[in-house]
């Protein structure tokens, strides 16, 4: 049946399912004889003979003896027989090795004896006793009786009459008690709650008061602390400023002292450097240098010029005189060998010109006379020839202021 089932299912699809109705397992021993009633419920195990494995297929006259399913291979059989033989041999060897009781001594014989408590007769032949019994003929199975379970328990009965069960007053009492009690309790509770609340409130107020006071106290302390701190800060700051100022002042003082010392020499140095560079000059010296000396040099130059002019004029005079004399000499037929030539030397000799000058003036130069007239008294007064030159120069110098212009012009005319 199972195989039929499985064949069916395997053909249906890939999944394997197996279901079967619950069935009572067939008992091997039948109590009652087979009846016609049982057929439909128990499917009979049958199978197709074609697919039965026990049936041999093919030709049977050349039947291979081996390889039936589950049948042992002949080789295997042989091997098993050999193994059995070996095992037997091993067992025999072991039995031989097993210690046995030694062989009896000479003239003795071993006998087996039972030593248990209850002896048993051992006989070769087993005691047999025949017994007979008989079973009744098979009967039909009777119909099953209705099953009524046995009664258990005890039966008891009672009866309640009216008014026996419920008494209002009695019954009401606990309820009333409860109700009233509960109400009262509730109200008590409420009152207590109120009281408690009031208490709490009062406590809270008190607490708040205390807290406010404490806060105020704290604030006050804080204020105090802050003021202290600020005061400290301010004092520190003040002190720091003072120290700073002190430092600065000392630095300034040091700087001033240093600057004073360093620049102590400044003014004299400035003045001396200005003097060296010529900005400060001695005004008298400068005045002399700028005013007086050039004038002096000028005058000296002029005097020297006049000197030169005078000498040139003198030279010219001498030349003229000499020429005239020469002419006179040449004209006068060599009568006079004139010494004036020796006396009057060459133009430029210093010794004679003074003498010659006088001489000239006396004898000649009408043109010069008005000019030289004023000199005459001065010159004539100094008769000494050695001093004459000097005096003449002096006279020239003294007389210069009046005659400067005239002389200059004559000089210039002469030179030009």
């Amino acid at each position, binding site marked *: 049946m199972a195989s039929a089932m499985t064949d069916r299912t395997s053909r249906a699809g890939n999944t394997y399912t197996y279901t079967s109705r619950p069935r009572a397992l067939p008992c091997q021993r039948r109590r009652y004889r087979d009846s016609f009633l049982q057929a439909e419920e128990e499917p009979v195990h049958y199978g197709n003979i074609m697919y039965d494995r026990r049936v041999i297929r093919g030709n049977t006259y050349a039947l291979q003896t081996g390889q039936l399913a589950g049948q042992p291979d002949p080789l295997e059989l042989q091997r098993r027989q050999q193994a059995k033989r070996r095992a037997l041999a091993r067992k025999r060897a072991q039995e031989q090795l097993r210690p046995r009781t030694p062989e009896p001594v000479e003239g003795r014989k071993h006998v087996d004896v039972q030593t248990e408590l209850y002896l048993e007769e051992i006989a070769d032949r087993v005691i047999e006793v025949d017994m007979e019994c008989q079973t009744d003929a098979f009967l039909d199975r009777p119909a099953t009786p209705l099953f009524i379970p046995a009664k258990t328990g005890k039966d008891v009965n009672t009866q309640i009459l009216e008014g026996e069960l419920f008494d209002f007053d009695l019954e009401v009492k606990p309820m009333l008690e409860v109700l009233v009690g509960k109400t009262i309790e509730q109200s008590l509770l409420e009152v207590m709650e109120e009281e408690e609340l009031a208490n709490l409130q009062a406590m809270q107020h008190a607490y708040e008061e205390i807290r406010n006071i404490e806060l105020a106290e704290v604030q006050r302390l804080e204020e105090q602390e802050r003021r202290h701190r600020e005061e400290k800060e301010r004092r520190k700051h003040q002190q720091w400023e003072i120290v700073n100022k002190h430092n600065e002042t000392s630095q300034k003082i040091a700087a001033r002292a240093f600057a004073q010392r360093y620049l102590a020499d400044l003014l004299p140095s400035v003045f001396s450097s200005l003097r060296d*560079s010529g900005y400060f000059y001695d005004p008298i010296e400068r005045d002399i240098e700028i005013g007086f000396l050039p004038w002096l040099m000028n005058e000296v130059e002029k005097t020297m010029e006049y000197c030169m002019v005078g000498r040139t004029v003198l030279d010219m005079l001498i030349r003229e005189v000499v020429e005239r004399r020469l002419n006179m000499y040449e004209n006068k037929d060599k009568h006079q060998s004139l010494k004036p030539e020796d006396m009057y030397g060459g133009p430029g000799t210093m010794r004679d010109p003074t003498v010659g000058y006088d001489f000239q003036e006396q004898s000649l130069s009408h043109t010069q006379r008005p000019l030289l007239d004023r000199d005459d008294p001065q010159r004539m007064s100094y008769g000494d020839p050695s001093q004459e030159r000097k005096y003449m120069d002096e006279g020239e110098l003294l007389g210069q202021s009046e005659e400067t212009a005239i002389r200059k012009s004559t000089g210039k005319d002469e030179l030009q």
Partner: protein
Amino acid sequence: MDATTAPHRIPAEMPQYGEANHIFELMQTMLEQLLIHQPEDPVSFMIKHLNRNNDNVPKIIILGPPASGKTTIAMWLCKHLNSNLLSMQNLIGRELQFMNPEMKRQYLRTKMIPSALLVRLIEDRLEEEDCIKRGWILDGIPETREQALTIQSQGIIPRHVVVLSALDTVLIERNLGKRVDPQTGEIYHTTFDWPPESDIQNRLVVPPGISEMETARKLLEYHRNIVRIIPSYPKILKVISADQPCVDVFYQALTYVQTHHRSNAPFTPRVLLCGPTGSGKSLQAALLAQKYSLVNVCCGQLLKEAVADKTQFGELIRPFFEKQMVVPDSLVVKVLTQRLDHQDSIQKGWVMHGFPRDQDQAHMLDTLGYEPNRVFFLNVPLDSIIERLTLRRTDPVTGERYHLLYKPPPTMEIQARLLQNPKDSEEQVKLKVDLFYRNSADLEQFYKQAITLNGDQDPYTVFEYVESGIINPLPKKVP
């Protein structure tokens, strides 16, 4: 007691600041200008003067006979110092169109104008911005003493006056080769200063008035006048011989023009003497201390004194001395600081020798605030050092020190018993000299304004060099 008169502890930065910024010279020039100009509002004048900040611009006068090359030198100096050149031509050239015709005629005829006009022209030119900012170089002005005096009395004060001089014969000969470039106005010479470019060569013309007679006449005028101009500029004059190649003349002039003159600023010398052992540092320091009453700070001496006095530093230094090891820098610096902080060394100045031996020590000295304002390096060749040191001897009996060459002992007896300090042996000396030379390059680089002297001379000669190095202001570096 007035707080301003008590003796003050002046912090050391103040004199250093004053020195570094030349405060004294600044105040001096400002005061001079104030006195010269005498403005009505002195404060704003001073502010304007300080804002100009032109104390260091070149103010140079160059004088010299004709053909001495003063125009050339003046032009080169102008270019080098980036300054303005003022000469007779360019002063008058600007004014030519404004002069009245009579003066113009006179000028064109005699090439001379009245001194008053010239001085006025100079004054006006010097008031202009570029002269104020960049300075001026006067070429050939003043020509007479009168001009010089007038310029001076107007308050125009040069800082350097260079007078070129040469023999008359040389000048007359030189003048014959003078050539002028008409475009640039530069003066060239056929032999000494020939222009390299050929186009300039082709342009050159012979200027008028270079014949011998002319030159001789001009020389006569010049000699007459220069003798009287020179005394007007007594302290700032320098005469340079013009009879050398013009490059040499130029460099001499340039060096002179860039030196400061000695100023009267109060100066506390803080001198550092560096040199190998045996170069004479202690001797020079002793001489300086004696003459200028400076404090002689000898590093080795200070350490020995500290050890001998058993001060707290001395206790720290003694183990190094006993083991003959070099004392570490920190200790040395502490001892030195202690000494240099004394009031007397701040006030009088100091001369130090034997301390910084290498660049780190020099750095340390600087960071502590004890910068020296004069540094001298004494150079002595190794042979001289060896000669000076290895011949030192001491007499054990009298304690007298002799030198076998420079101060020999009087008698043979004394000479026989003389002993030599083992530190004076040749190897020791060579070792110390090597040690110095290893670090000297670093030190020289660190002290850029140091003055190097030849220490191989007579001590008083070296002392004179040191003195002149201290007294003269430090040379300005060429920018």
